[in-house]
């Protein structure tokens, strides 16, 4: 049985059907005029041979082409996409099945941050009352390593609400190079979680090694097709409206192999996209559709996700403001656009502007996690543990995030209101109002242990103290102490024999007899 996710029965819709149509038509216009600039020759050729109007913009060292994509080509590509995308997993119970017209949400981690935030607790004494001590968390940033990635995947394996795993930290060990980064980050992830693993690719040259690794794990090419335990995310479009040379190469090659892939676009309203909602929406929709069209022209039926990572610019620095309310609005709009095309959506929430866990971080992420979930994206990249936009990862924050996703999932449980419940309730009300104390407490009991009552916040402090961080830290360490189902020793041995560049220290069986 695949993972259930959470079905949003009545998704929140921000824009009307008419506005969806308006954005769609504006995007179609954009794709034909002004069209996209491609810095990737293959993409230009593929579009040209399929009837798009392609002209050379510049030649020489940095050649580029203008691609004007006719509406019928886009619509035909949208038509040929799989409306159901399956993301496999080492543990078959962790498989994710996403249907473009079903607002069933799966919560996935990510993205890749450069900085890992360690936590420890210091004890402070009150000056005016030395007997009073408090423990305060301190956060220490450092460069992420492959050991951190293993730790993060390990904890996310045990976090109840995490449905799939995008690597949370960029591995920057001294012995990690551009040539071995991909195999090591995929292996570290796959070996520490049995959930689906998605990642970007650093080097196209490593694609076949990564795919082969996955084949070894599941037992072969056909088995990987049936159970794609890995998938890829590619930012082939640079806003505004440009196909990037190298990531488009990667995208094309992933499509040729028929593995699931996210077409991701991340325009920033105000700088690389218009500041108004109508503008960024028309543009991001055009950019994603261009990528989706390319995927289907390369390999019809490539399982593809409509990837949207829109963001508004900060007015003080013109950097990203993922914590802005507009960012959530754009994401909700994108969910609606993807649903309009019946293509499963990769959406974003929980990315916040705060640099350490705290009140700003909690408020920012919970707000966007809640509202974007309510709109019903299928693949919600919800930034477990991410801070400072996508620069910092903190495992403690990921544990805190899991607690509020449990609340969100509970909120979305279907309402238990029906003839049977109403009939029982009427009996109960008549019975209770006839008693002297008129209390319903006795009737709590039958439902108390059935899962119908939401659990208390797991990190609630005693009395007036706020022990959230300390309790979450305890929970984090409990999760780290839990065992992980690693890839078996025989397969691990095959992987280390066949896949070049893997760090020997990642072999958990090495040194064991």
């Amino acid at each position, binding site marked *: 049985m695949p993972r259930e996710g959470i079905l949003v029965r009545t998704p929140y819709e921000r824009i009307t059907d008419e506005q969806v149509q308006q954005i769609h038509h504006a995007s179609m216009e954009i794709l034909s005029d002004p069209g996209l600039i491609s810095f990737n020759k293959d993409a230009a050729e593929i579009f040209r041979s399929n009837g798009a109007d392609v002209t050379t913009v510049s030649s020489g060292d940095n050649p580029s082409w203008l691609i004007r994509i006719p509406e019928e080509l886009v619509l035909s590509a949208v038509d040929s996409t799989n409306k159901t995308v399956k993301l496999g997993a080492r543990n078959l119970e962790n498989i994710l099945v996403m249907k473009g017209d079903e607002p069933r949400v799966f919560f996935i981690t990510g993205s890749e941050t450069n900085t890992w935030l360690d936590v420890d607790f210091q004890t402070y004494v009150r000056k005016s009352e030395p007997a009073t001590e408090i423990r305060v968390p301190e956060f220490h940033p450092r460069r992420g390593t492959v050991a951190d990635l293993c730790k993060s995947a390990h904890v996310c394996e045990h976090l109840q609400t995490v449905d799939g795993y995008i690597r949370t930290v960029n591995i920057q060990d001294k012995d990690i190079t551009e040539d071995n980064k991909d195999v090591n980050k995929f292996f570290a992830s796959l070996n520490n979680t049995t959930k689906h693993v998605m990642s970007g690719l650093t080097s196209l040259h490593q694609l076949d090694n990564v795919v082969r690794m996955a084949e070894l794990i599941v037992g072969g090419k056909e088995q990987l097709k049936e159970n794609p335990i890995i998938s890829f995310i590619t930012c082939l479009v640079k806003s505004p409206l440009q196909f990037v040379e190298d990531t488009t190469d990667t995208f094309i090659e992933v499509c040729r192999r028929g593995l699931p892939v996210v077409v991701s676009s991340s325009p920033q309203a105000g700088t690389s996209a218009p500041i108004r909602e109508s503008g960024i929406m028309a543009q991001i929709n055009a950019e994603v559709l261009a990528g989706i069209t390319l995927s289907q022209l390369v390999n019809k039926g490539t399982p593809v996700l409509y990837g949207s990572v829109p963001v508004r610019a900060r007015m003080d620095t013109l950097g990203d403001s993922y914590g802005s309310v507009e960012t959530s609005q754009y994401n909700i709009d994108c969910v609606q656009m993807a649903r309009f095309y019946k293509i499963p959506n990769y959406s974003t929430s929980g990315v916040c502007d705060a640099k350490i866990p705290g009140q700003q971080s909690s408020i920012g992420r919970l707000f966007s996690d809640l509202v974007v979930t309510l709109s019903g994206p299928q693949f919600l990249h919800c930034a477990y543990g991410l801070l400072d936009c996508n620069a910092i990862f903190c495992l403690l924050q990921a544990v805190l995030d899991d607690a509020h996703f449990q609340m969100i999932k509970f909120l979305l449980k279907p309402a238990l209101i029906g003839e049977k419940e109403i009939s029982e309730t009427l009996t109960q009300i008549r019975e209770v109002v006839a008693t002297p*104390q*008129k*209390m319903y407490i*006795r009737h*709590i*009991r039958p439902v*108390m242990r059935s899962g119908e009552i939401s659990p208390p916040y797991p990190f609630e402090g005693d009395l007036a103290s706020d022990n959230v961080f300390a309790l979450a830290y305890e929970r984090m360490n409990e999760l780290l102490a839990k065992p992980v189902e690693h890839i078996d020793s025989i397969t691990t041995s095959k992987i280390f024999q066949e896949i070049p560049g893997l760090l020997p220290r990642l072999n958990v069986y090495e040194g064991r007899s």
Partner: protein
Amino acid sequence: MAEDILKLIQENVIQGRITKDDEGFEEGMAGQPGVTELVEAALVQKIDPQDIISKGLTKGMEIVGQKFEAKEYFIPDMLAAAQAVGAAMDILEPHLAGTGIKAKGKIIVATVKGDLHDIGKNIVSILLRGAGYTVKDLGNDIDTSTIVEAVREEQPQLLGLSALLISTMANMADVIQALNDAGLRDKVKVIIGGAPVSEDFAKSIGADGYGADGFNAVRVVESLFDAGSA
């Protein structure tokens, strides 16, 4: 035979089942006799009321308390069990006269004038009854004079007052002053409870105790009775 029925009483206290219509935790309990039916059956069988209390009701409540401490049971479980014990005590009370068995004590509870919020007072009332006290609940929005009259007539060892509103908590002080004026203050201990009140407030108005929550209130009452001051 007697042992069997006492065991059943104990088990049904743990399940919080007052009558045969109540569900327990376990499937299929509805329809089987609850605590009230079992106590009546025990009386028909001439089982000593003292044994019904100590080997059935009190033993059951002890186990419920242990389960609560172990976080296996929650407050609704405690209240259900306490309600079952309270209902059983109502049946047993007429049979205790002349047996030499006394109730643990008599308590009057009331929510003071101007305040309709009585959930807390009701919970305390249930828990006290479950703990073996005779509790007379005057209700909510009760005039000071009515409370004083009840104390004069019923002669309880303890009076419990509750208020939820800042605007009504001052009426607790009025009740204590009125008890003083009526010459009854040294005959009854007064404890107070409710969201806006505190230990300090209790002291400031001359109350004998403060219950922070239902369970704490029972502990405060127990300590006042144990100390012989109530």
